[in-house]
């Protein structure tokens, strides 16, 4: 009550004059805004430092040989990580080839048939899988595939697939949910079967956002180490057969960094730098793609109009 008197609204003369309380409110606003800015800045500093550190340590060992040569035996100078680079591409590629369409299919089901009982059960499983620690997934694949068939690039891909699937499914579901229902109805009312409405109208309208989800999922699995340790294992050489153990960049970085040989540690830093740049460029190109794609193709949905 007393604060209302300070506003002095009742005498009618100076309605818009600043009371003490208004000043306090403004000051509070600036203070909170400043806090948020500071906290964001503090959070960004270690990230920038990581990038700087990896670049500074790795740049000296990244050269043509790094991309084309196999690792040299411990103690010898030179060599590269071409086996791990190709290995990562193979393992991530196989996982993506299966995981993207499969995950998107799940996402479509979760969004377009959201009220069904199976969708509710599936959503629960996806949420569970998304929060499962990646090493648990590695152990699962170890027990399920590796124990029977041995270490292989298939086992590594299977582990990455299990990590990728729920990420792609959840992402696709969330994006499709943003498409207003009246767009679906417009399609259905034209005499277009439901599945064609989804494939030809709903998905194209959010394609750019789906691309983001896919890119982020690829970036996510490209950096996974734990589930590959006991599935893909690693390999000194190029693989001749996909059923053999396969080298991957994160695992090779891990092993080289604890080898104790200075040359191998340098190679590990170089590998780390390539990995960071790879993930960075995936994000960067996704954003560029979206920027140019959005300009002439996608208009964001207007809410509440």
């Amino acid at each position, binding site marked *: 009550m007393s604060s209302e008197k300070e506003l002095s609204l009742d005498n009618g003369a100076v309605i818009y004059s600043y009371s003490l309380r208004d000043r306090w409110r403004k000051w509070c606003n600036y203070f909170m805004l400043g806090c948020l800015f500071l906290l964001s800045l503090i959070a960004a500093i270690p990230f920038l430092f990581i990038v700087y550190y990896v670049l500074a340590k790795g740049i000296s060992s990244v050269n043509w040989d790094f991309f084309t040569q196999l690792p040299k035996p411990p103690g010898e100078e030179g060599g590269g990580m071409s086996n791990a680079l190709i290995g990562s591409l193979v393992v991530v590629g196989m996982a993506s080839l299966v995981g993207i369409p499969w995950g998107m299919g799940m996402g479509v089901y979760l969004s377009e048939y959201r009220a069904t009982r199976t969708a509710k059960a599936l959503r629960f499983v996806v949420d569970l899988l998304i929060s499962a620690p990646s090493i648990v997934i590695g152990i699962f694949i170890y027990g399920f595939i590796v124990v029977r068939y041995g270490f292989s690039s298939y086992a590594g891909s299977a582990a990455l697939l299990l990590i990728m699937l729920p990420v792609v499914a959840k992402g696709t579901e969330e994006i499709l949910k943003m498409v207003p229902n009246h767009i679906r*109805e417009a399609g259905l009312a034209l005499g277009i079967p439901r599945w064609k409405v989804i494939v030809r109208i709903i998905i194209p309208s959010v394609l750019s956002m789906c691309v983001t989800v896919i890119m982020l999922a690829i970036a996510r699995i490209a950096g996974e180490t734990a589930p590959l340790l006991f599935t893909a294992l690693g390999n000194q050489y190029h693989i001749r057969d996909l059923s053999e153990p396969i080298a991957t960049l994160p695992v090779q970085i891990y092993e080289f960094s604890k080898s104790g040989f200075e040359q191998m540690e340098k190679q590990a830093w170089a590998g780390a730098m390539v990995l960071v740049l790879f993930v960075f460029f995936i994000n960067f190109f996704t954003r560029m793609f979206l920027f140019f794609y959005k300009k002439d193709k996608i208009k964001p949905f207007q809410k509440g109009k």
Partner: protein
Amino acid sequence: MSDVLVKIRNLSASFSSVTVLKNINLEIPSRKVVAFIGPSGCGKSTFLRCLNRMHEEVPGADIQGQIFLEGQNIYEKHIDPVLVRRKVGMVFQKPNPFPGLSIFDNVAVGLKLMGVKKRVLYERVEDSLKQAALWGEVKNILKRQGTSLSGGQQQRLCIARALAINPSVVLMDEPTSALDPISTARIENLIRRLKEKVTVIIVTHNMQQASRISDKTAFLLSGELVEYEKTSKIFTNPSEVRTESYITGRFG
């Protein structure tokens, strides 16, 4: 008298056991404009959505009775709702062109997915846009986004989209309630011309609009059909007291 295109027999509809339409019986003549008026929540939109089997797309929806379109009961078991919807076009309250599709594709998509050949596609699109009185404004920007048009143009684009697949009935659910008076007038003119080719069934909150464009008017009140007569009669000499109170603004 003109021939009957749609015959509705004992139609009742509900959402999760809340009855929205009660035992509606009426006949809609061919190539006329029929308006449905009534207060909010009286079941006008539900009625419209029963006619192209969109009502059943909502979870918990139920429907009883028969609707005959050109003599065929569209609720018979073997009838595919997809085929019904190709005969019965629909225009929604809010202009809703497909996002991400060009103006051309917005009109063409229904035809393309029905397997219409590319050679005739352009003609059909041009034809539909002309019928919707939009061709002059968009003929040079067909590749632009459908959503980049103004609200009134978007709604005419939606009408063109509905006309493209050659329906015999076009349902319009308050097509001008989101538009300004000039765009509204354009669409009303358009509807008047459309009846040369198709039957238009329009739901509207605007009674002047109903009296301006329709040949027959039906008055719905809490799910019941109160009166269905020639528009001139409904607005000058209604036989029901409830109709008179509604159109003179005493309630609703």
